[in-house]
């Protein structure tokens, strides 16, 4: 029993240590899977939408953009999210508050873009900021997206596993020229990163992000402790983006160590499981008729010894009972 408890404690300890290191990755992957399911539902909904319905969505977004006097960014990360208007929530609302999808192939990022609301604050999801342009596929836009993200070096152990907090973590590794893809219904808008800056929260709040004449821009903002990372990108034609992305469009064969990792590990785990099962049932199969299990024999020996001592000295039991 003591041996069993020791093994159990050791297994639990090992599981806790492995879990500590593996959980953020697994949790992140599960979060991404959930996002992928949301986007699959989004695509299914846009697939059955007729052309007029899609055009109307973009018309509504354009009307919203025309109504904006100034494009700015409130500090939605520290001040909290104030209730946004129903009018804003209904524009470009294709599926359950999702506007579209942001894809950055260079950092393997693919996230749904939500309307900013108290249910979907910028501290939890990648959101469109309600004081900026909606993606209406037109000129004179500056679409501001905001989402959580922490620097890996600054990551607080308590924060690990909070998948949503790690969404835009890799944004720091982008360089000017990186392509950002925005999929809204069946339209694709591609932006090229023109600048990356680190600003103070107050500095960002005071910034006028209103686009210039004929400009089509996208701005992504993510918190880095008390500072804000701002990525600015300019729109480029889809055909130009296709030519640029064609260079990266290829499949490769993984290195040998990855082959071993992906193929060897499942086989090894399966083999170990088989070994464990055999070990568990081994005692039953390989025991001679009439032969007891080693544990039973040991137990019997101990009880036998006890019996002998009690037989030799019956007063001892009484002494023990009295104690």
């Amino acid at each position: 029993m003591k041996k069993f408890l020791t093994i159990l404690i050791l297994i639990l300890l090992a599981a806790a240590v492995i879990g500590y290191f593996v959980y953020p990755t697994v949790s992140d992957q599960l979060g991404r899977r959930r996002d992928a399911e949301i986007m699959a539902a989004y695509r299914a909904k846009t697939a059955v939408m007729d052309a007029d319905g899609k055009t109307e969505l973009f018309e509504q977004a354009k009307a919203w953009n025309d109504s904006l006097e100034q494009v700015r960014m409130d500090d939605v990360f520290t001040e909290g999210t104030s209730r946004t208007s129903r009018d804003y929530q209904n524009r470009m609302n294709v599926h359950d508050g999702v506007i579209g999808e942001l894809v950055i192939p260079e950092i393997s990022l693919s996230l749904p873009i939500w309307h900013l609301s108290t249910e979907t604050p910028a501290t939890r999801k990648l959101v469109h900021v309600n004081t900026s342009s909606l993606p209406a596929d037109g000129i004179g836009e500056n679409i501001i997206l905001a989402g959580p993200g922490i620097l890996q070096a600054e990551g607080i152990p308590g924060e690990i596993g909070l998948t949503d907090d790690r969404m835009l973590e890799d944004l720091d590794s982008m360089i000017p020229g990186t392509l950002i893809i925005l999929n809204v219904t069946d339209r694709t808008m591609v932006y090229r990163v023109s600048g990356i800056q680190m600003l103070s929260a107050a500095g960002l709040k005071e910034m006028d992000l209103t686009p210039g004449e004929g400009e089509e821009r996208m701005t992504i903002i993510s918190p880095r402790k008390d500072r804000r990372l701002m990525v600015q990108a300019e729109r480029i034609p889809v055909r130009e983006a296709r030519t640029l992305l064609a260079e990266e469009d290829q499949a490769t064969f993984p290195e040998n160590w990855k082959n071993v990792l992906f193929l060897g590990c499942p086989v090894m785990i399966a083999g170990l499981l088989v070994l464990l099962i055999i070990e568990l049932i081994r005692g039953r199969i390989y025991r001679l008729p009439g032969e007891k299990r080693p544990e039973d024999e040991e137990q019997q020996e101990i009880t036998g010894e006890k019996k002998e001592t009690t037989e030799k000295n019956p007063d001892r039991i009484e002494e023990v009972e009295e104690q």
Partner: protein
Amino acid sequence: MEIYHPRDEELLREMRRVRRSDRRKRLCIGLSILLILSIAAGLFVFHRYYQLAVMHGAAMGGTLPEGTVVIVRKPETGRTYEAGDILLYEKRLAKPVELTILSPKGKTRRYCKYILYRDVGTTRQYFSTAGGTPVWLADQANADVFRSSDEGTVTIATEDLKNGEYHLQEVMASYGQDLLKDPIPFSVNNPVRTQMKRVIAGPGERVVLSPYAETRVNGREIDRSYTSGRTEDAAPEGRRVIVPKERYFVQGDQLSLSLDSRETDYNTVADEEILGRAEFALWPLQCFGDLTGRQTTVAGSETEAAE
């Protein structure tokens, strides 16, 4: 009467212990050999029929994003593929070679005629497509003739030329010019890309690309529930394709950003270029799952009039 001796019990117990330890040792060795053999056999079988591949770029949209690791089933002889299958293939992106030929005095050589040849060891072979299929002949009589344009430029399509060194030999000069005796060397160096894209039409099927309506295969609308973007961004001119024998019409799931069979230069994918069919996505977890059995057209959307 049986004589009991306490040492008999001890001896019996010791014998059992030794027997048990021996059995355990043999079992461990046997199982280890079995495990090693099963891993080796598993890996051998896997490598015989399957391979791993990693997807890069945004052409396959949400289905296979950047860095997706997939299991690919290697091709078998006589194997055909269906619409919906994701193929791994090696595509040679053939670009035409344009040569501007000048005379020794620096004048452009307009309206001259050339033949193309290559040297294989000590033999010279001339390029010909006279019979409909490209062949290399020992005799220059039936060789294809290339003509230089107004600007003195000769354009050579490279679909049927392997990467390597070639020569153009002038066989007829324009009026008033001397025949160039020296051959004009040039090299073909087309990039070869290993790519993964989805089959939307097989041999003999009709594909209609239109900037005004959804893409159609045999009159049926393409299913948009797994795609992003739109074809009109990628192939704005629109055209009709009847897929030739032993070839497949492929396209990426990110319609607006994929360079694929919708492009005239890209062409369809030939059977011999196929390296396998993507069957299962392993990593990342968001893509984990079966990749086969996808329907690419919408049932009940047949309208011949739309074509």
